[in-house]
C-alpha cells in the first residue's frame, strides 16, 4: 500500500514529517546551548566554550553522579536479567492458569504509576534501614526492571519450539543444563534487549530516587533534576548533548543492523 501522489496524500505526508521533526528538533537545540561560554542558558554568540563539559568531568556533583548511576544501573541490570530470565523460562515451562496470578504480580511495576511505588518504597525502606543506601536503590530498581526483562524474554520464548526442550530432557539433560545449552542460546536476543531496557530504565530513573535517597547517594538524574529546579545550569545542556549523541549512535546502529538482518526483497 503506497500513499497516492495526490494533493491529500502530499498533505498527509507533510503533516507526518512536521510531527516527526517536532519530535527530534528540541533535542537538537541543546547542542549549541551546551557550547555557550556564559553561566546561564543561552546560545553562544561569538566564541564557543567547552567549560560546561569540563564541569561534567571535574565537578564532583556531576562526575560522582555519573559513576554512582553507572554502578547502580550495572548491578541492577545483572540482577534483573538473571531473575527475569529465570522467571520467564519457568513460567513458559510450567504454563497454564496457575501462572496467571504470578504474571500479573510480576508485571505490576509496569502499570502502577511511579509516584505510587515511590511512596511504597520510601515507607518500607525506612523500616528496613535501606534509605539513602546504594543497596536500597538497587533493590528498588531491580523490582521495576524485572518485568521489562520478563516481557522481552517471554516474547523470544514464544517463538521457541517446545520440542527441542523435550528432546534434550529425554536424552537425560537436567533443567539447568537445558537452560544453559538449549534455551539460552536461542533466546539470547530477547535477554540482551531486556538487559538494555533494564540498564536504561535504572540509569534514567528519578522519581523513586527522589524519595529514597538524600545526601549520601547522588545519581546523575538527581544532579540533573536539582540543576534544572534550582537554577538552569548549562552543564545540563552538556550532559544532554552527550546523552542525545549516544542515543543517536545506538539507534542508528540498531536500525542498520535490523535492515541488514531483514530478508532482501
Amino acid at each position, binding site marked *: *500500500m*503506497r500513499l*497516492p501522489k495526490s494533493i*491529500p496524500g502530499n498533505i*498527509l*505526508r507533510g503533516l*507526518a*514529517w512536521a*510531527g*516527526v521533526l*517536532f*519530535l*527530534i528538533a528540541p*533535542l537538537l*537545540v541543546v547542542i549549541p546551548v551546551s557550547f555557550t561560554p556564559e553561566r546561564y*542558558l543561552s546560545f553562544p554568540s561569538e566564541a564557543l566554550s567547552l567549560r560546561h563539559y569540563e564541569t561534567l568531568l571535574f565537578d564532583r556533583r556531576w562526575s560522582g553522579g555519573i559513576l554512582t548511576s553507572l554502578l547502580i544501573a550495572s548491578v541492577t541490570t545483572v540482577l534483573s536479567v538473571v*531473575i*527475569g530470565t529465570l*522467571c520467564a*523460562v*519457568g513460567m513458559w515451562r*510450567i504454563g497454564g492458569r496457575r*501462572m496467571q496470578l*504470578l504474571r500479573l504480580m*510480576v508485571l*505490576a*511495576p509496569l*502499570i*502502577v*504509576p511511579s*509516584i*505510587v511505588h*515511590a*511512596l*511504597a*518504597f*520510601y*515507607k*518500607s525502606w525506612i523500616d528496613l534501614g535501606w534509605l539513602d543506601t546504594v543497596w536500597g536503590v538497587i533493590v528498588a530498581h531491580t523490582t521495576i526492571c524485572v518485568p521489562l526483562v520478563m516481557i522481552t524474554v*517471554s516474547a523470544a520464548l*514464544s517463538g521457541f519450539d517446545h520440542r527441542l526442550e523435550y528432546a534434550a530432557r529425554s536424552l537425560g539433560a537436567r533443567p539447568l543444563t537445558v*537452560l544453559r545449552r538449549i534455551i539460552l542460546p536461542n533466546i539470547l536476543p530477547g535477554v540482551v534487549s531486556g538487559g538494555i531496557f533494564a540498564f*536504561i530504565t535504572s540509569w*534514567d530513573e*528519578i*522519581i523513586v530516587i527522589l*524519595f529514597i535517597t538524600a545526601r549520601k547517594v547522588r545519581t546523575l*538524574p538527581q544532579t*540533573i533534576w536539582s540543576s*534544572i529546579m534550582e537554577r*538552569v545550569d548549562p552543564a545540563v*545542556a552538556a550532559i*544532554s548533548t552527550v*546523552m*542525545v549523541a549516544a*542515543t*543517536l549512535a*545506538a*539507534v542508528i546502529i540498531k*536500525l542498520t543492523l535490523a535492515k541488514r538482518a531483514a530478508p532482501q526483497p
Partner: protein
Amino acid sequence: MYVLFVLPAALLLFFLYLLPLARILMISATDGQGFVANYGAVLTSAPIHRMVWTTVEICAITTLATLLISYLIAYVLVQVSERTRMWMMLCILVPLWVSVLVRAFAWIAVLNNSGPVNGLLQWTGLTDEPVQLVRNQFGVMLGMVHYMLPFGILPLYAAMKGIDPKLISAARALGARPFTAFRRVFLPLSLPGLYSAFVIVFIFSLGFYVTPAILGGGRIVMIAEYIALLISQGYDWGIAAALATMLLSVVLAVVFIAGRFADWDSVLGGSRR
C-alpha cells in the same frame, strides 16, 4: 524443578514490591484521622478539587492530541518507502530512548524567554515582549505530548503493519471512494492498536511527574507532584496515601476495561496467532 526458576522473582516482587504497596493502601485507611477523614478530605478539599480538575483536563487534552498525531504519523509510516521510513523511525526512536529529564530540559531551552521560539516571534515582529511559553499549562501539555508521541506511534504502527493492504484495494475495486475505504475497512481494523495506544498514553499521562513538575514550574501541579509535595512538606501520610490509592484504582480500571479491546501481542512483539 522449574518452580525454583520462578521463585526469586516471586519472592522479590511479593515481599519488596506488593507488600510495600499494600502498606500504602493500608495507610490511606488508618493514618491521620482514619479512612473516613482521609477520603473525606480528598472529596471535599477545594485545592484538591482544583488539582484533580487540572490533572483530568491536561490528561484528556494530551491523550487526545497524542492519539490524533500518532495515528496520522503511523498511517503515513506504513505507506512510505523503506528509506523514508528509516529516517522517520530515527526521529521517533531517538526521543523515545532519551532520558525524560533531558527532554523536559530541552523544552526549557527551546521555550524560555530568551530561547529560539521567542527569538523568532520577536524577530518577525509578531510580538515585542517575550511570550511566556513555559511554567504554564501550555508548556506542560506540549512537553507531555512530545514525551507520549513515540508511545502512541509505535503500537499504532505495529497494528497497522498487520493490516492486509489488499483489503483496501478490494474495497476500492468494489467502488468505495478512498475515504470510505479508509473509514469502513482500515479504521476498524486499526482499532485494537488504537486501544492499546490509548491505554499506554492515558495511564502514563495520568501519573506523570517529571515533565509537569519541570515545565509547570510549580504553577501547574498534577496529581503525582501534588502527592510528592504533601509528603515533602510534612503533611500527614493519610491524605497522600488516599490520593495514591485513588490514582492507582483509576489506572487499574482503565487497564482492565480498555485493555480488553487492545492488541497487546503486536505491542509486546509476541507471536501473532
